[in-house]
């Protein structure tokens, strides 16, 4: 039976930031829920740690798979209580774009990216966040989502195109000279 407390803690230290970032983005920056789910996911992983087989993939992929499934169950159960960016701004959880205008150019761009992300479907958001924000490779995402690498590439390119369209629709004058 595989159970090594120390080993798990080492793994946890390695992935905690990425995992939390992933959950936070997927939950539209609702940090309170993200923290709760982080706890659930880590505990679930710990309880099932003996089932983790390093020959079948990295710990990171394994725990991301758990997190992904947990998110699905969470939304199913709570009927997706997600706040829009506007609501988040109102609650002061996410800085408003107006406020961002006073910041650096990069921050403004970033806020725009968030807005465009918000307009995507969950599956599109999921894959974009995994690849660009969590820096997971195609093969890692394929492993987590139990799909072929080719399918992931196609899905990602499609998601990026949709993202581009959303971005363009939100900020039509952005690139017009």
């Amino acid at each position, binding site marked *: 039976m595989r159970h090594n407390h120390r080993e798990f803690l080492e793994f946890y230290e390695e992935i905690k930031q990425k995992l939390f970032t992933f959950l936070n983005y997927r939950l539209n920056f609702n940090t309170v829920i993200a923290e709760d789910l982080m706890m659930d996911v880590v505990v679930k992983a710990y309880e099932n740690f003996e089932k983790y087989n390093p020959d079948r993939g990295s710990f990171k992929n394994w725990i991301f798979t758990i997190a992904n499934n947990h998110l*699905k169950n969470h939304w199913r159960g709570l009927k997706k209580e997600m706040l829009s960016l506007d609501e988040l701004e109102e609650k002061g959880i996410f800085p408003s774009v107006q406020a961002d205008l006073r910041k650096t150019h990069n921050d403004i761009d970033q806020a725009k*990216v968030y807005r465009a992300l918000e307009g995507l479907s969950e599956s599109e958001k999921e894959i974009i966040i995994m690849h660009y924000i969590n820096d997971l490779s195609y093969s890692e995402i394929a492993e987590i989502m139990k799909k072929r690498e080719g399918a992931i590439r196609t899905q990602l390119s499609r998601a990026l195109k949709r993202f581009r369209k959303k971005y363009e629709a939100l900020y039509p004058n952005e690139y017009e000279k």
Partner: protein
Amino acid sequence: MSMKNNELKHIEGLLRKSPQFHLSKKQDEKILKALDGLHVLKARNQVTPDRSFHPFMLLFKGFATVAFVVAIFFGTQYYFNKVPTETTAPAQVAGTYSEHIRNARVALAKLEMAITGETSFSFIAMAVAENEDSIEVDENLISDLTEEMVEETQAAIESLGETTETDTLDEALDEIDELQTDEIEVLVGVSEVIEGETVAETVAAALDTTIEQQEAISESIYEVDRAIEKGEKKTVIQIKKVNFENKRKLVQENIKKAVLDGKREKDFILEHAAEAKVRHLVIKEKRLQNKILHAGQVLNKSTEDLSDLVKQGATEEEISDFEEHMNRLRSAVEADSPEILGDVVREARKELEAKKMELKHRFESLSEEEKVEFKEKAEEKKEAYQERVEEFKESHPEVKEIIIEEKAVIKEEALKPEQAPIQKEVPIKEVMIEADVELPDKDEVLKTEEDVPNVEGELNRLELEKRIAEDRSVIIHKIIEHIRDLPPEKQAIIKARIKDLPLDKLKMVLAEVIANYRKRMEEE
């Protein structure tokens, strides 16, 4: 203006630069504490295993209790059946308990079916045997436990169902949507290609490089010529000159090849996109038919409901609300009428045929060698396309059947004789002859618009117009894209003239504009 690759890269860059979030120290500590707690608990369990903490054990204990009660009930029932008595209370009690037990049994049976492997009945029986002695008869406890068991079991079954079938189904449905989006995207891709961006850019890049090379070579040749004039190392220089000439020929051939490849690429995409468009529309039409059939049934039902309402003496307001609801439903059905879509499908088919003919002519004009090469390349591309489809089907066996079903629909449609009524072909004037722009008069256009096959009928005009307006704006945009190289005044005339053209005319103008655009490009 559409965003180009560098803009896309910019966005990719922004996404990559998105900030990472840090778990708060407090939450981190909480997690670590929880893990430590679990560690201690696990360690303790490993030393003195106490299965009563396990949720399944609780379930088994419950089952054991229930089993015990079953025995009592059967005994009681047996007793009351054998010894007739006027007292009914024990029978009622037994009835209530039997219900609980039946529920629990059903739930357990379901659970057993749902969870395969270890948690079989034999295992449960073992647990019952182990705990039998410790069971105390407490009616309330039994009742509570039974209910709890039923709830837990049902929750377990539901969660099992959710994490397996629903997920797969959801994914399957998502993928179907994506598959269709793919088809639409092919069309979008085509419009880009038609605009000459993709192919032209590739060819232009190849041309730029080769032209640079050519210029460099020409310069060298010039220097060589001058050297010859001066009589310097005449023979060596002459050899060099021949080499340069050869290189130049090679470069020219490369340019020709690049242009040809670009054209082939475009042909392939055009052909496939047109096919994809027809396929997509046919599927959409079939689905709409089903939707309308269903909506029709709902409408019939609603009519019955309405007459019931009247019979029941509903107020005028209630009836009018209901009628309004029905009208909305009817409008929705009519706005999506497959008849309209049918026209679009037929039109798309016509386009497809025209494109195929065009490709055929172009193919015939190739040399034998080029034909072979063309076929090979087309085969390669088809294989790649097929591979992608196969890959998708393999990774999603559950979707396969749906695809097969859709294919059957397509096949059925393809076998149908062309049902399209012969549309009145309104000859459109030569839209653009070189720089001379000649479009139909606005008045004439408006007149012919009335001659367009009547699609109004019972349709909701506003809905229809909204859809047409969307299509129109796309086509107008494309036309404008293809006249950008014309003098501004010509562009202005065209823009003014197309402003009020009906959709079918706009499409014809677009075809003309593209043809003329290509012609100009080729001549250049």
